[in-house]
């Protein structure tokens, strides 16, 4: 029952994030394995690739951040020419990830993700 409640919280979190303008998909992933836990994606978006690649990058950046004597990252933003990947690491090895276009409201996406990841972790 606790597992079911947790998945429902995940769905709610993903729904809120994907409603932000410009967000093409959001997913909850396992950081160590790089696997999808839950997802809400537009057609044509490869959740598996996002999970694997985002997890890898977040872990690498986490090692660098901790190596600098800082606390683990709470938000990561990889910006490309044609869009961005946003990641909000939570607890229990979970990371909330969003794929956004150039037109995305990044500020709102960030706020929603930081709020949402706290609810699912």
């Amino acid at each position, binding site marked *: 029952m606790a597992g079911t409640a947790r998945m429902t919280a995940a769905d709610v979190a993903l729904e809120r994030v994907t409603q932000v303008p410009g967000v093409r998909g959001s997913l909850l992933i396992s950081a160590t394995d790089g696997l999808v836990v839950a997802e809400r994606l537009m057609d044509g978006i*490869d959740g598996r*690739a*996002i999970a694997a*690649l*985002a997890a*890898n*990058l977040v872990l*690498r*950046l986490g*090692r*660098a*951040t901790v*190596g*600098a*004597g*800082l*606390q*683990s*990252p*709470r*938000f*990561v*933003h*990889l*910006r*490309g*020419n*044609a*869009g*961005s*990947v946003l990641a909000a690491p939570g607890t229990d090895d979970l990371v909330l990830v969003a*794929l956004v276009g150039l037109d995305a409201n990044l500020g709102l996406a960030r706020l929603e993700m930081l709020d949402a990841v706290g609810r699912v972790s």
Partner: protein
Amino acid sequence: MTEDIRSLTARLAEEPSSLAFLELGEALRRRGQLDAAYKVARGGLGRYPALADAHDLMARILGDQGDLAGAFDAWVEALRFDPMRIGALKGIGFLYFRAGDVGAALDHLHRAAEIDPDDASIAQALARIRADAGAPAPAPGINGGPAPHALAPELSETPSTEKAEPGLMLVDSNGLRLKGSLRSPRNEEVGDRVAAELAGVSKEASRTSRLLGLGAWQSIAVESAEGNLYLVAPTPETLLLTVRDPALPMAQLGLIAERAAKEAREWLEQHG
């Protein structure tokens, strides 16, 4: 026209290669004749491009004209030729303070104080900045968004002696430091370790961005409770890390980092 300006002008006319342009430019600047001062300084720099005094003079003139980015660049040049130039350290420190980057302002003023501990103006500036640390002076353009002239910290060769000052570091693709340093909040030198951890990040970011259809990667911003990090690649083989206190807005950190990346590219071209 005052007597000193007249005589200095005559001297410069007789001997165009003389250093009289320094005094003349400063005299004109003090009188508010900034266009004339600028022309004199420009002429002098043309003859003496490696003279720190000339760059310092130009920086003061540009500062008076409101060209703060130009002033910053000129003071950076002055420091390049004379790393102990107090006027440049003070000027840059002031500009950082105006931009809201208290850490960098303190860093430069502390360096100036080490060179001349008896300079009362430096002590006063430090006291003022520390008192205002919670409410930095408004930066130009604050009503319209980010400051139009983003100031970039120089890539310091010497780690700050202050506790917990964030840093700027240039790293190659093998995880080795090229320039700059980094200290932890507990004032430990962590540059080499972080450089090693960053090896391959550029390649990883490039792969992630490409495979997810995001094009070429531009930057990575990382927020943590104790500090924000910003990564850009000045060249395909290097990575520039900028670390600042989380009180500095991430967008502003991005501007600082982009400016520093430009400087890094110029440095790499000179030393590559």
